[in-house]
């Protein structure tokens, strides 16, 4: 009977019906087949939207947009450049490091790629990097936006699989550092081998002065993650309250301290953030009725039984899941994939004795790689546009970074301690 649900979902999705509608419509098909009233859809949609935790998503989107318009991004680039610029291949590393800083304030990968790529790709070209290489670095470091907290995919996962947002945020810290440092290492090695990025040697004193000056200029930008994450982990704020603190912080810094945001821009930024919010949350809303249909028809249970039939080894289970998610991520939007799959896979993972927070990390990291895998990868499209290169040119340098990301994913999968280290 649940066959109807999945077949109608897949057919609708592949003919290009928006995912929110495909989820709602396929649930309605099964509802009417089972003789249940259609008003169940409305009930479930409003129940899922009427949630204070969900509000962290619009606020983090707004905060990210405010950061970008408010001049914070530029200062972060300067800081990262002061820290890493002296190494051969350092400028490539600067892209990654700036993405890491940026990810601690914004939950969006594409915004990170666009903001940083547009500033740094031309700078990299001047220092002898080919443009497609610059674009590939910018695109793949966008992945960090989804892993380093606060992250919108993580909030969505937490709500879909019913785990704590704060715990997933904590779990993302070390994997985020792992992915970030491996990408920095990779760019430095390639730059050295290919002879990009000639630098003049500087003394430690010059370096320290440079870093301090940049730090002074960007102090308000750097303090922000301390406020947000510190607030959440000390238990002072809920994630939603922390997200609104981020908005207020972004407003104050943009309007009064850096003064790069004016009141007229503000309504524009808010309107744009509202649209992005709606596009994400409408999927969350209709995924609720879909998840309800799955649960009352015991789909997660059946899937668990099916996979146990193949192997009862959790390591094999994780491998199967990773391969499947990687393939799905090539075609499906990260957020949509999380919303649809988390309620199905999370209970199955629990049956295998996998820590729910560790599993959350694996899923988010894996599906976020989907943003940089062809044929459908939003980060690739954005990077191509800001760097003005064609998708085919991007492929060769990109595959090296994809290899690094897959390796990181396997480490995160098979070393649970990385994700659970900070958990109580």
């Amino acid at each position: 009977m649940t066959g109807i649900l999945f077949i109608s979902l897949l057919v609708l999705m592949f003919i290009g019906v928006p995912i929110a509608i495909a989820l709602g419509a396929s649930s309605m098909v099964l509802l009417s087949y089972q003789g249940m009233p259609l008003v169940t859809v409305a009930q479930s949609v409003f129940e899922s939207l009427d949630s204070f935790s969900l509000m962290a998503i619009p606020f983090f989107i707004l905060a990210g947009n405010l950061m970008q318009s408010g001049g914070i991004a530029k200062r972060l680039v300067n800081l990262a450049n002061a820290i890493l610029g002296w190494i051969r291949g350092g400028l490539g590393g600067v892209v990654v490091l700036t993405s890491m800083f940026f990810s601690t304030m914004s939950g969006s990968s594409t915004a990170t790629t666009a903001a940083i790529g547009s500033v740094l790709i031309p700078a990299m070209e001047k220092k002898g990097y080919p443009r497609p290489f610059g674009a590939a670095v910018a695109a793949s470091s966008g992945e960090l936006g989804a892993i380093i907290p606060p992250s919108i995919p993580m909030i969505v996962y937490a709500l879909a699989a019913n785990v704590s947002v704060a715990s997933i945020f904590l779990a993302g810290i070390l994997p985020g550092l792992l992915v970030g440092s491996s990408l920095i290492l990779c760019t430095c090695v390639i730059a050295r081998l290919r002879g990009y990025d000639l630098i003049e040697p500087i003394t430690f004193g010059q370096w320290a002065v440079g870093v301090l000056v940049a730090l002074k200029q960007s102090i308000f930008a750097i303090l922000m993650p301390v406020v947000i994450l510190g607030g959440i982990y000390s238990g002072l704020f809920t994630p939603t309250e922390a997200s609104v603190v981020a908005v207020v912080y972004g407003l104050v810094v943009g309007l009064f301290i850096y003064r790069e945001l004016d009141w007229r821009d503000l309504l524009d930024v808010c309107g744009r953030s509202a649209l992005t919010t709606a596009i994400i949350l409408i999927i969350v809303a209709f995924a609720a009725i879909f998840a309800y249909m799955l649960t009352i028809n015991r789909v997660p249970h059946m899937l668990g039984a099916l996979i146990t039939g193949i192997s009862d080894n959790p390591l094999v289970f994780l491998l199967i899941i990773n391969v499947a998610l990687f393939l799905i991520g090539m075609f499906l939007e990260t957020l949509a994939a999380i919303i649809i799959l988390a309620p199905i896979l999370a209970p199955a993972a629990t049956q295998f004795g996998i820590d729910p927070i560790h599993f959350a990390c694996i899923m988010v990291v894996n599906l976020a790689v989907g943003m940089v895998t062809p044929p459908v990868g939003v980060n690739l499209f954005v990077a191509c546009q800001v760097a003005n290169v064609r998708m085919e040119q991007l492929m060769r340098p990109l595959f090296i970074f994809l290899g690094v990301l897959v390796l990181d994913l396997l480490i995160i999968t098979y070393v649970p301690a990385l994700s659970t280290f900070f958990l109580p």
Partner: protein
Amino acid sequence: MNKNKTLTYETGSWFACPGRSFVVYMDRLNSLVTKLCGVAMLGMVLCVVAGILTRFVFSHMQYDLSLPWTEEVSRYLMIWVVFLGAAVAARKGKLIGVQVLVYALPRGLGAGLKYLSILMSLAFYLILIWVGLEWAELGRTQGSPVLEIPMATTYSAMSVGFTLSVLNTLALVYEAVKSRVGILGAEEDDEIASALAETKA
């Protein structure tokens, strides 16, 4: 007939071409609704900030003052933002979907599939307008937990939003047919468009 590839419309040509002024008026309505959504976002921020301030500041000053309504109002504003924002997004086909097949197929076939999916979406919107009205009717007598405003004021967001979605989808189709960019050229991707908008600003 508008034979230009660029989408320029003039107002006041109602009699000359009703469809074109329909698109113009829809776009005006959409920019108004977008502004309203922006204001609602600010409203949500203010409500939650007020909630935090009362919790932190007044509890330290030994006043027993909490504002439970702030949370309620912000949640209801968010619900309106979601349905109205999704409706505005429908104007440029910005709702997230899987477009691989549509673009992989030969152009004519892909466009045909796209029109089929638009037809399905319209049917979905129309059914949900009706379901939403039924649900809002149930919420007429029910009050919200704190402020006791009738739930129908929130529940009607679905029918209102999807009505706007239907109108916007028709405007998208009209524009695609008339401007000759085709249905595949008339759509935009929100995530990419907004990420790039930031960098150009």
